[in-house]
């Protein structure tokens, strides 16, 4: 390939990072990886894809580390990056499904070593519409506050409460279990849930 016309192989963004930067970044990424895989497995319903996307997220983290390291809530930022990446791929899922139509069910349905209950929960989460699912995962798995979730979704906090309530209600219905909805309870007890970030 003619690199003079098409190549833009920038040096790794870590090239200017100090040894201390690298150590801190490595430690941060190592701590985030399992959390991201879990979060993305829930978000996408696909454990293998989750690992792939988690690494993609860490690529972004490494490239934006000078900015991220100064954040108060790095985890929230990283979670937001992760679900955005997942969302982008999610939109392409139908194309993958069409390919699977040719190849057989390999990409969207995976063996689940965690058992039927876990599979049922993930399937129920995966069946949620995009935004309620993202709100649910960020709020109740990723540990983001309502304000952070709202920021990630680009919506008011009240909308987050509504989305998570819808998601929990759908899970109740699908799974046939009585689920506690922390945001729903909050909304019921706090007159103006939009006035501040819920923990």
């Amino acid at each position: 390939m003619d690199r003079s016309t098409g190549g833009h192989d920038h040096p790794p963004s870590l090239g200017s990072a100090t040894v201390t930067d690298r150590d801190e970044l490595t430690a941060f990424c190592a701590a985030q990886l399992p959390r991201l895989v879990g979060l993305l497995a829930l978000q996408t319903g696909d454990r293998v894809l989750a690992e792939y996307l988690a690494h993609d997220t860490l690529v972004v983290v490494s490239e934006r580390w000078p900015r991220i390291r100064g954040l108060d809530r790095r985890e929230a930022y990283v979670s937001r990056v992760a679900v955005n990446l997942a969302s982008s791929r999610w939109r392409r899922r139908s194309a993958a499904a069409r390919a699977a139509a040719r190849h057989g069910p390999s990409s969207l349905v995976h063996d689940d070593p965690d058992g039927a209950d876990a599979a049922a929960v993930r399937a129920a989460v995966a069946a949620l519409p995009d935004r309620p699912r993202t709100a649910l995962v960020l709020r109740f798995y990723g540990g983001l506050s309502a304000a952070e979730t709202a920021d990630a979704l680009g919506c008011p906090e009240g909308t987050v409460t509504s989305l998570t309530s819808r998601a929990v209600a759908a899970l109740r219905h699908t799974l046939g279990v009585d689920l506690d909805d922390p945001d729903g309870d909050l909304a019921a007890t706090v007159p103006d849930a939009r006035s501040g970030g819920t923990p």
Partner: protein
Amino acid sequence: VTDVRDLLTSTTPEPAGLAPVDLDALSARGRRRRLAKRAGAGVLSLALLVGAATVATDAVRGPDAPTIGEVPGARGWVSLPEPPLPTRSSPQVLHVDDGRLVVAGGHVGDDPEGIIFRTDGAVLDADRLAWTPLPDVPFADGSFDQTGRIAVFSLHGRTLWAHAQDGPATAPSAPLDLGELRFDLARLDLDDLDAGWELLPPPPVAGTLQPFVSVVDDTVVVLEGTDLGSAFRSRSGLRTSGAVWRDGTWTTFEPAPLPPVSAPFVGLDRDHLAVVGGHGPDGPSADAAVLDLATATWSVAPDLPLEARGWLVDDVHTLVADGRMLVAGGVVRPTPWLSDVGPPLEELVSPICAQSSDPEPCEVPVLGELPSREGPPEIASGPADLAAGVAWLDLDTLEWEVVDPDLETIHTPLRPDHLTPPHSLSLSGAELLTGTDAEDDGGPVRVLGDGTIVPGPLPDAGIGAQSLTYVGGTPVLALGPGPSDGGARVAVRSGDGWVEVTPLSAPAGVTYALAGTDLVAAGGAPAADAADVLEVRLLRR
């Protein structure tokens, strides 16, 4: 009462035992990601490859097919009448040589029971712009289950073919009784819809899962699938043995006289079946063999004169045109994340669920429990190594012609993107053109063949090109939805620039096809809060 947090964290715990984070690997991955973005490495399914190959073949053969409708002066999408079918994503769109348009198959992907694949369809009369439902195909809608009960349609002349595999319903984790699998293959004469579908005698591929079917004219080739327990859901068991349907009878053929591999390139024309490359126990293969369909005998061809390679899935039906098979793209070293790249057939078949009559419980392997592969060191994380170079194999003389040994083929390597074939493969006249797609920062689109490097059309981040086709020699890019969650976007090359036409309403799941010189877009997953319709639109040029 269960706390929803507890439910989620207990059923999806943070995994242990992940590979250590390697910053250098992440940096390398970042470079690859940028490179992939420059190539517009969005998801392009194999169905699109087959479609592109069909289009390309047609371009070589130069049919002057009639176009649909008359929309003089139109510069945007024109809505065709809505087909009398339920809505769906990714329908198959097939253009008949008399101008008719067939929309069939596709799936409904948001059903809580899983993805339901449609088996119905309709044909559009080009003159009256009226749809006629196709007769009921002799197999039913199916869920996205382990049997692969999926209807796949293909058009050859004016004969529409459909095939699907069915079996008894079992729990997703349970082994499947391979002896009870049924494989249906049917054809429909589009000039005599009243005659209905003709169900062919069952091909002699009983006891294998997800065989590979390819049709050229009246010849059908079926490669046997895996006989692994279906819960493994692997595609690594495709065999090179199978059967040919010709003149009303099935003739079986033996496996290619090559070491067994998974994920080879497979090409078919009227007289030949060719198998090239694949992944074997010692790594990627450069082996090649061609089956003479008339005599059911194999000939071993010289090795691929490029770096050995295979795909990441089996039954990749690559382009064959004018008696030559194209080898472009592929991977030279797959990542171990991909189970279906794993060990070749012989390593997996015998111990696990191979015999449906086995009274002992099947032991079904799961991800992470596969036998380790021998061969070159595997990549601990990150994408597969991609192969460079483009070559043609002459199926009669068994001679190779290397077009460009250095051309880098770029595609997103991992599941589900690993299904992606080389992007933008197309032909213009008799000249090979391979183009990569757009870069999200407006970088180059590479078009090989005429040496053209043209800039990408859209600067928005987050938009990946899904396909690049050529309509009358003009590149047409189908793009993903924009960041605003709008509909899918399409750009057409015009002069030195690109013209983006009106976005579609569906953000994804749209099928793009060529009908003569027109671009057809059909189906799609509806955007949030949008009406649930099955749109078929036409971009007349």
